């Protein structure tokens, strides 16, 4: 393990491990509002069929999940539950924030009970704009996340350091689009 933490593992092994993680995104569906239905459509509708990309929507328990898609409006009452659930997930874990509400509060920006953005509670890897985003948008979000995972370095991940998008150095190799959309 020491070798991994120093980032000294052979390239093919890193590739294989990243490749496995990339195509084995067991997804916990944190369906909250309208976006949850579009997420459901992306998963269950044969037209979108997110399973094609290796996103497996089976786990009903966060303990077995790698990816959590927060889709919909997060309220202040719900926020502690989300935080707790995120902490229940084992590392390495990824978060997709789907829809305007999850990104920033969306149409409820002035509400007294809505949390203005999931990223106030948990770190987010990919933001998907839209109200609600079409299922295709979620598919693209997943693809962007997969690109990131493929290019991930094992060292920081195993040391438990947060991966920060846009930080100079660590993720310069990412495709332009990934950084642009994921930090949009």
């Amino acid at each position, binding site marked *: 393990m020491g070798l991994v933490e120093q980032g000294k593992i052979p390239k093919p092994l890193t590739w294989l491990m990243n490749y496995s993680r990339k195509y084995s995104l067991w997804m916990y569906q944190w369906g909250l509002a309208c976006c949850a*239905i579009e997420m459901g459509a992306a998963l*269950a509708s044969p037209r979108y069929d997110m399973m094609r990309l290796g996103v497996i929507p089976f786990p009903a328990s966060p303990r077995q999940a790698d990816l959590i898609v927060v889709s919909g409006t997060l*309220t202040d009452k*719900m926020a502690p539950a989300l935080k707790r659930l995120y902490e229940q997930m084992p590392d390495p874990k990824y978060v997709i924030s789907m829809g305007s509400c999850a990104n920033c509060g969306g149409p409820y920006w002035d509400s007294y009970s809505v949390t203005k953005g999931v990223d106030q509670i948990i770190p987010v890897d990919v933001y998907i704009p839209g109200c609600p985003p079409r299922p295709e948008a979620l598919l693209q979000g997943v693809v962007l996340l997969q690109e990131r995972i493929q290019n991930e370095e094992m060292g920081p991940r195993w040391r438990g350091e947060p991966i920060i998008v846009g930080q100079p150095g660590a993720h310069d190799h990412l495709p332009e689009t990934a950084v642009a959309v994921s930090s949009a």
Partner: protein
Amino acid sequence: MAVTEQQQQAFIGKHLAEAQVAVELQDEDMVLNIGPQHPATHGTLRVVVKLDGERVVAADPVIGYMHRGYEKLTEYRSYPQVTTLINRIDWLSSFANEVPFIHAGEQIMGIEAPPRAVYIRTVLTELSRIATFLLFLGEMGAQVGAITPVFYGFRDREYVLNLIEAATGGRFHPNFNRIGGLKDDVPAGWIAETRRMMDKVFESCDTFENLLEGNEIFLARTKGIGIIPGDVGKGYGVSGSNLRASGVDWDLRRDAPYLAYPEVDFKVWTHPGGDSWSRYWVRLQETREAARIVVDLLDRLPSGPVMAKVPRIIKVPPGESWVRVENPLGEMGYYVVSKGATGPFRVKIRSASFSNVSILPWLLKGVYVPDLITILASLYFILGDIDR
């Protein structure tokens, strides 16, 4: 079904005494916290149940995890902005949400939408009903353990969403209604396409019927489970298909006519059972009926404009209006109070699911945990519609 007043009062009294203490309980009973995020609650409902083995002794639904403060937000928004917002109350049938609010505005302003707009509104309302119910039919299977129907539900729903998208430009939240009519006419070829798709809807209804109706296990899981007597349901304000499944012959489309429903001949389906199976069955029939209404209306779609003459900036004169309609989930109403500004003064949103779910403490007493799931699925609520 015959429950006397006295019996009902007894039920209610008992429930009120017990349901409240569900959270603080003795040690011997197991308290299970289902939700707020649980596969069965399709959304963020939380049910705290006191268990004796697998039997529910008391249940206390905790709502509000999706409360977004709609009624407050509407006070800060202009009429078009409110229309945008209220699409997202019952997100499965957004178009149907808009209609009563627009009606309330039109009523206070004394405007009538042109007949073509009224017809198209009716068609789109029924289409959103079909989309909602198709998802229900699939979801119901999934909740009792059959995974496949939900995929069929999503697949067939997609056809209907396509139609809504083609007409309104919005797949999910059309925001197509304006005070005085519609934003646009339907595109060319849409009517023929809709007719064709209605055939698909009939087909998929048959599929669901074949998949689940003849299935012994499905019947065993739903028949006699979660019986709502009509009288009790009315007292709780249960409405829509849930109430019709309890044998109450009450459909606002027929009994408080609005849109083009008076001009359509349709059947109001009821079932005397009151159990989960009846609710499933009634919705299945209503899906077919909705498709029939759509076909019928399309045959007689009048020509003409789709927008009445209204000022560019909508200012609704002082007044108040209460409009309720038969949404897919039940009775949805808006009590709009206007003081003559560009935005409403107060909007009370009466949403169907809130009342439908308020019966849960009464209904869940004494059922098994698996039945709890069946009941939740068959009541069919949308969290946004409960919490607003």
